[in-house]
């Protein structure tokens, strides 16, 4: 179980290999890679800057990962999130979940992404072709996605 904030890119195969090396109780490995798209709200995007809250970011990611481990039968997991200036096509985030069975791996993967999107302190600023920078607005759909993991209202 580990989290990492980094300017450097990641390699999905290498990260999986680290998590699964020598393990023979892992039957399911699920990954999610988030990438910078080439347009935002119909405008071409030339760069994306990712800012975070050093100290709090690592604490939040650890907390989210610990919560996932308590809810799902995970053998291993990893969160890697990049910061700094990225280009369209670049990787932003990697989440990996390893479990004996696929259902736990899938559920934990979606849980981790839903929490990461709404609670980990990262902020994106998009630069369009004319050099104009815009802070990305939070999406209501991300808050909605999170609500499914919470106890139902009585």
């Amino acid at each position: 179980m580990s989290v990492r904030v980094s300017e450097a890119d990641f390699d999905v195969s290498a990260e999986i290999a680290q998590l699964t090396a020598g393990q023979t109780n892992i039957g399911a490995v699920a990954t999610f890679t988030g990438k910078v798209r080439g347009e935002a709200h119909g405008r071409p995007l030339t760069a994306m800057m990712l800012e975070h809250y050093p100290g709090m970011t690592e604490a939040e990611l650890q907390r989210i990962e610990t919560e996932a481990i308590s809810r799902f039968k995970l053998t291993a997991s990893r969160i890697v999130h990049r910061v700094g200036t990225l280009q369209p096509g670049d990787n932003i985030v990697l989440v990996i979940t390893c479990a004996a069975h696929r259902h736990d791996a899938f559920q934990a993967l979606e849980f981790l992404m839903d929490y990461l999107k709404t609670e980990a302190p990262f902020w994106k600023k998009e630069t369009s072709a004319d050099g104009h920078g815009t802070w990305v607005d939070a999406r209501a759909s991300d808050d909605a996605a999170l609500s499914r993991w919470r106890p139902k209202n009585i």
Partner: protein
Amino acid sequence: MIEVQIEARQVTLRYFAWLRERTGVSEERFALPADVVTVRDLMTALQQRGEGFAAAFAQPDAIRAALDHVHVKSHTAIGRAREIGFFPPVTGG
């Protein structure tokens, strides 16, 4: 003597994304006014610090806060927290 200590308590304030840009500050030491109890009280106090801070904190409902790296609601009492972070809703992932 105790009252003086409360009035003078220094905290670290940190600002991110457009709050950092509008205030022009990323991190500072700040003496908590004695009448500031909650995070929202602090936002109101910070609004009085000139044009940049007024613009940054003009819509407190659009701002999120953390006490010592833990997300809190704006009605939360600051208590003994040493670091208060202000930022927009997160957009990572």
